[in-house]
C-alpha cells in the first residue's frame, strides 16, 4: 500500500494515498480570520474552494514553514453525512511516498491526551513512522465549522 509521507516536527507521518486527491504547492491560500485553531483558510482546488488545515499548527501549535517541501495535500474525508468532502492539509516535507504493508503497522496505545488522528506505527529504518487518519484530524469544533462552511459553499 502506498503512503504519502510528511513531517510534523522531527517525526514522519503517513497518509494513505487513497485518501489523497492531489498534492499541490503551498500557494494561493485565502486566510479566514476568526476560524478555529488549526483552520487556516481556503484554497482553490480546480475552482472549488476547499478548507485548509495546518496539521503542524494543529499538532505542534506552530504554523508550517513556508518551504517548497511544504505542500497542500488535497484529501477526501468522509463527512458526517456520508459524503466525501475535500479537505486541504498543509504539511511539511511532503516529498516522498512510501510503500508499506498495512500489516507492518503496530497499533499505537492510546493514552489520554494523545490526539485521535494518530494511528498505528511502523518503523522505517531507525525512525518510527505513524499512520495518520485524516478524518481523525478534525475535531468537533472544526467539523462543525467545516460543516457550516460547506453549507455556505453549497449555497
Amino acid at each position, binding site marked *: 500500500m*502506498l503512503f504519502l509521507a510528511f513531517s510534523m516536527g522531527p517525526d514522519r507521518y503517513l497518509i494513505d*494515498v487513497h485518501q489523497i486527491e492531489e498534492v499541490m504547492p503551498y500557494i494561493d491560500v485565502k486566510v479566514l480570520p476568526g476560524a478555529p485553531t488549526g483552520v487556516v483558510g481556503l484554497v482553490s482546488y480546480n475552482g472549488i474552494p476547499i478548507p485548509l488545515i495546518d496539521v503542524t499548527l494543529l499538532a505542534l501549535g506552530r504554523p508550517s514553514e513556508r518551504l517548497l517541501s511544504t505542500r497542500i495535500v488535497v484529501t477526501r474525508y468522509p463527512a458526517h453525512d456520508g459524503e466525501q468532502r475535500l479537505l486541504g492539509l498543509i504539511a511539511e516535507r511532503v516529498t516522498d*511516498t512510501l510503500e508499506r504493508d498495512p500489516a507492518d503497522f503496530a497499533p499505537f496505545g492510546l493514552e489520554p491526551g494523545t490526539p485521535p488522528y494518530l494511528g498505528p506505527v511502523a518503523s522505517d529504518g531507525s525512525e518510527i513512522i505513524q499512520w495518520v487518519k485524516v478524518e481523525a484530524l478534525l475535531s468537533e469544533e472544526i467539523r462543525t465549522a467545516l460543516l457550516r462552511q460547506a453549507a455556505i459553499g453549497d449555497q
Partner: protein
Amino acid sequence: MKSLTIRHRILVSFAAVLVVMSVIAVIAYAWFLQAGQEATEVEKGILPDLYHSTAIMMGQMTAHSLLQEYALQDNPSDRSTLESAITTNRDQVQRSMDDYEATIVSDIDKQNYAVVKELANQFRLAETAVLDTSRAALSKGETLNESPAIKNTVEPIFVKLQSALQAMVEDHRGEANSATQQISSIVRTAEVGLSVGLLIALGLALLLGYQLFRAITGPLTRLVDAVQLMRQGDFSERLDLRRRDEFSVLADGFNAMADDLTTLIGQVQRSSIQVGTSITEIAATSKQQQATATEIAATTTEIRATAKEISATSNELVRTMNEVSTVAEQTAAVAGGGQEGLTRMEGTMQQVMEAAGAINSKLAILSEKAGSINQVVTTITKVADQTNLLSLNASIEAEKAGQYGRGFAVVATEIRRLADQTAVSTYDIEQMVKDIQSAVAAGVMGMDKFSEQVRRGMQEIQQVGGQLFEIIQQVQGLVPRFEVANEGMQAQATGAGQISDTLTQLSEAAQQTVESLQQSTLAIDELNQVSGGMRSSISRFKLRA
C-alpha cells in the same frame, strides 16, 4: 683850644710859621737881590776884564818865552815848529785883546788899554823883525843866534808891556775886591737878619708844634693803648675822648670796629664749637664709611667668587646646550625618517585600501554571480519541486489506478528520484552558494571591517604623522631656541667674566676707598687739631658781656 680840630691846629701852626718864614724870605730876597746885582756886576764887568787882561799878560809872557826858546834852537825844523807856535800864540793874544776891547766901559780902562795896545804893537813888530831875520838866515843856510837881538829889542818892550798889563790887572783886581766886599757885607747882614728871623720862626714853631703834639699824641696814645689792649684779646674797652675833632671821629670808628669785631669773634667762637662738633660727626661717619668700605671689599671678593662659579656653570650649560642641540637635531632627523616611513606606510595603506576596494568590487561581482546562481538554483529548485510534485501526484494516481498504473508508478518513482537528486544537488548548490554568499558576505564584512580598520589605521597614521610632524616642528623649533639659549649662555658666561673683571675693579676701588678714607680720617684728625687750635686761640679773647 680843645674844640679846634687837629686840622685847624695844623693849619694855624703851619700858617704862622709860613708867615714868619715868608717875611724872612722877602727880606732875604731883597738882600740877595742886592748881592746878586753886585755879583752880576763882578761877573759881567769886572771878572771878564780881569780874565782878559790876565790872558793878555799870560799870552805876552808866552810869546816872550817862545821867542827866547826860538832863539836858543839850532835845528831848523825846531825853529820852524816854534815859529808856528809863536804865530799861533800871537793870534791868540790878539783875540784876547779884541775881546777885552769889546768890554771896556770905564775911562780908566780905556786909558790903560790904549797904553797896552801900543806896547803890544811894538812888541809884535820887534818879534816879527827877529823872526824875519832868522828866516832870512835859514834860507841862506845859517842859523843865527837871536838871543842878543831879542835881549836888545824885544825885552824892554816886553817889560813895559808887562808893567802896563800889571797895572791894568791891578785896577781890575781892586774893582773886584770892592765888589766882593760889598757882597760880603750884604751877606753878613743877611746872616744876622736870617738868624733872627729863624729864631722867631723856631720859637713859634716850637710853641705851636708842642701844642699840636699834645693835641695829637694824647688821644693817639689812648688809641694805641686801646688797640694794644685789643691786640691782647680784650675787646671789652671802648674809647671816650670827649673831644670834638678828628680823633673823636677815629675813636667812634674804633668803638664801632671793636663792636663789630666782638660780634664777629662771638660768631667765630660759636662757629668753632659747631666746627668741632661737625668734625666729631664727620670722624664718626668716616669711621663708619671705612668699615663699610672694608665690608664692600669683602663682599666684592665673595661676589667675584660667585661670578666665577656662574661663569663656570654657564660654560657647562653651554656645553650641555650644545649636546642637547645635537640630540634635538638627531631626534628631528629620526622623526623625519619616521615621518617618511609613515608617509610610505600611508601610501601602502592607500594601496591596501584600493586593493580592498578592488577586492570588495570583486566580491560584489562574486556576490552578484552567486545571486545569479541563486536565481538559477531557485529555478532549478522550482523545477525539481514541480517534478517532485508531479511525481508524487503521478505515484498517487498510479496507485489509485491499481494494476494499470504500475509501470507509471515506476516512471513516477524514477522521476521523483531524479527530482530528488536534482533537489539534493540544488540543495548542495544552494548550500554552496549560501556558503559562498556567506563567505562573500563575511569577506565583504571582513573587507569592510578591514577597510574600516585600514581607514582608521590611515587616520591614526595621519594623526601619528601629524604628531610626528609636530614633534619635528617643535624639535626644529627647539634648535633656534637652543641657539638663542646658547647665545644667552655664552653671553651669560661673558657677562659673568665681565662681572668678575668689574668686581676686581670694584675691589680695587673699594681698597682705594679704604685708603682714601684712612687719609680722610688723618685729615679729619688734622682738622680736629686745627679746630682745637682755633678754639683755643679764640678762647683767649675777652668779650664785653
